[in-house]
């Protein structure tokens, strides 16, 4: 191996070598963090909502009803929607996954204790678990006698909601080492018993994937701002179902305003549009960085090969095989890239720390560093291949040319 002579030789041409190493370090730092950001965005985009998205549509309508009228209207609306061809389940709820608007509470496992975690609150007017297609992994759905009216939540003479269904992730967060079913948690002074656990149900909006499945379903009817969910029997035409549902709702009350009528698939699409655009932009940044880095390596290696043609001829005359010359340039590139990668790894953590501080990015997992390093090593070797092959073809007779 010619590592030592190559290093000595590089010391004599350190400006160019340092520039390339710096470019590689910069690429390493940016690429590692960018890949991580893309990966987080991809995780968000592919998150399991817990609901039967391909079979669900939602309609949001507004009326000027008071609380009493709202209760009657909701019952009429649900009955009308149930008659739409292809609809198998209907429910009313005040928020939905991918809906952006979210009602949240802090949850404690002891009365008066600080919250262990925050969670979103889904208020089930009836049949929500079944309509969303949630998978109950423990316990049961709400009994009819467990439902209370939303207005009662604010009256001192009525017992507050006493039962809830929570997600497995929330159960693990609240009681990491014991089963959650039957346990009590608190949002205020009154205990709420866990009567069921669903596999997962994401918040309407979330930033970190780990926080997404922190959800509670309460048996609360007649909440303001209710929207309707319809689960259809596949392979129903969801758009046709939405049109028929709108017609059905207008037949119940022609003066209503229907502000939203969409499938869950289109809601997911819309919800993650920003993540998708960001992932594409960042992928473009990575490709551009790789191209610029590769061009830098090709340029420098070509310049060095051209400038060292005589030296290569001398080496060939002194016994270097073509393979020796090829390996020389590959090894030289490997050493420069390694210097860049090692520096880039520290820089990657520096950039990550800055992003954590200013953009709420998570800590960069260690395994991104070898991924970035291997990627840049491969890029370096591929980039130097063409100049190295040209070097390999330099004839030994060049040594005797004047």
């Amino acid at each position, binding site marked *: 191996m010619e590592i030592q002579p190559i290093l000595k030789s590089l010391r004599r041409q350190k400006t160019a070598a340092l520039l390339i190493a710096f470019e590689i370090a910069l690429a390493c730092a940016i690429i590692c963090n960018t890949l991580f950001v893309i990966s987080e965005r991809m995780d968000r985009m592919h998150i399991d909502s817990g609901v039967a998205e391909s079979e669900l549509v939602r309609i949001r309508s507004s009326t000027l009803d008071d609380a009493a009228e709202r209760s009657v209207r909701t019952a009429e609306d649900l009955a009308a929607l149930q008659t739409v061809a292809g609809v198998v389940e209907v429910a009313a709820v005040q928020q939905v996954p991918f809906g952006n608007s979210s009602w949240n509470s802090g949850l404690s496992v002891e009365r008066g204790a600080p919250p262990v975690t925050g969670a979103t609150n889904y208020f089930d007017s009836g049949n929500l678990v079944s309509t969303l297609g949630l998978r109950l992994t423990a316990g049961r759905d709400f009994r009819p006698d467990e439902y209370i009216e939303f207005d009662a939540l604010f009256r001192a003479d009525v017992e507050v909601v006493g039962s809830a269904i929570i997600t497995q992730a929330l159960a693990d967060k609240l009681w990491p080492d014991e089963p959650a079913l039957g346990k009590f948690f608190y949002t205020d002074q009154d205990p709420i018993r866990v009567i069921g656990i669903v596999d997962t149900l994401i918040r309407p909006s979330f930033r970190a994937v780990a926080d997404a499945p922190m959800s509670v379903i309460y048996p609360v009817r007649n909440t303001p701002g209710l929207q309707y969910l319809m689960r259809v029997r596949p392979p129903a035409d969801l758009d046709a179902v939405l049109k028929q549902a709108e017609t059905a709702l207008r037949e119940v009350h022609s003066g209503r305003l229907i502000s939203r009528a969409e499938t869950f698939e289109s809601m997911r699409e819309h919800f993650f549009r920003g993540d998708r655009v960001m992932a594409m932009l960042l992928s473009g940044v990575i490709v551009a960085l790789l191209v610029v880095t590769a061009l830098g390596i090709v340029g420098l290696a070509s310049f060095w090969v051209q400038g060292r043609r005589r030296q290569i001829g001398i080496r060939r005359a002194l*016994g270097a095989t073509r393979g020796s010359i090829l390996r020389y340039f590959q090894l030289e590139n490997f050493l420069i890239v390694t210097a860049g990668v090692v520096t880039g790894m520290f820089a990657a953590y520096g950039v990550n720390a800055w992003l954590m501080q200013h953009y709420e990015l998570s800590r960069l997992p260690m395994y991104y560093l070898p991924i970035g390093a291997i990627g840049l090593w491969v890029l370096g070797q591929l980039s130097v291949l063409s100049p190295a092959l040209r070097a390999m073809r330099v004839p030994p007779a060049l040594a005797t040319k004047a």
Partner: protein
Amino acid sequence: MFKMTHLSKAFRTEIVETFALRDFSIDVKEGEFVAVTGPSGSGKTTFLNIAGLLETPTGGRYELDGQDVSHLSDRARSRIRNEKIGFIFQAFNLIPDLNVFDNVDVPLRYRGLKASERKLRITDALERVGLSARMKHYPAELSGGQQQRVAIARALAGRPRLLLADEPTGNLDTQMARAVMELIEDVHRDGATIVMVTHDPELAARTQRNVHIVDGQVVDIDAAEPRFTAVAGG
């Protein structure tokens, strides 16, 4: 040591074929010191290139140590160059980015010798040319004569049986040229076969045999001792 028989070397373009060597025959014995002279463009360097396996002939036969080496693979030619042949060039041909020690080390690394063995050979060779105190110097820090002595040390460290010198004193003043020539004669006395291309009749006269090349052919042989032979035009 080596024998070329009816050797030719042609350089072809689309419209013309030029012969650098034509029907070239020579027989150089083991331990011989041969001077090759001739006008510019006569084919001296091409002859030296082929003798040193830096180029392949387009015709004829070249035997080195009894082995036909005319059409060996690049790898085999590189190995023979590295193990049997030493080169001294007019322009010294040291690698400017490497110091004296590392320059002498270059052919030894290609031979795959152990570091300890290489170090021993390098220090021996540099002591022999009187440059052991300059091991850490770079070529640019040495005079022309010193650079050529480093080149000789590089050749000596490989312990070649055939030393090919292309105008070794061409870039040196008289005093340095004399010192370098004495070194080459030392190497010859140690048993190496030497073929030296030169324009200098004085240097040529110090060898055992002069071969004169004109237009790619041997036209005159002046053998100082009868045991050496060379055949012009086959």
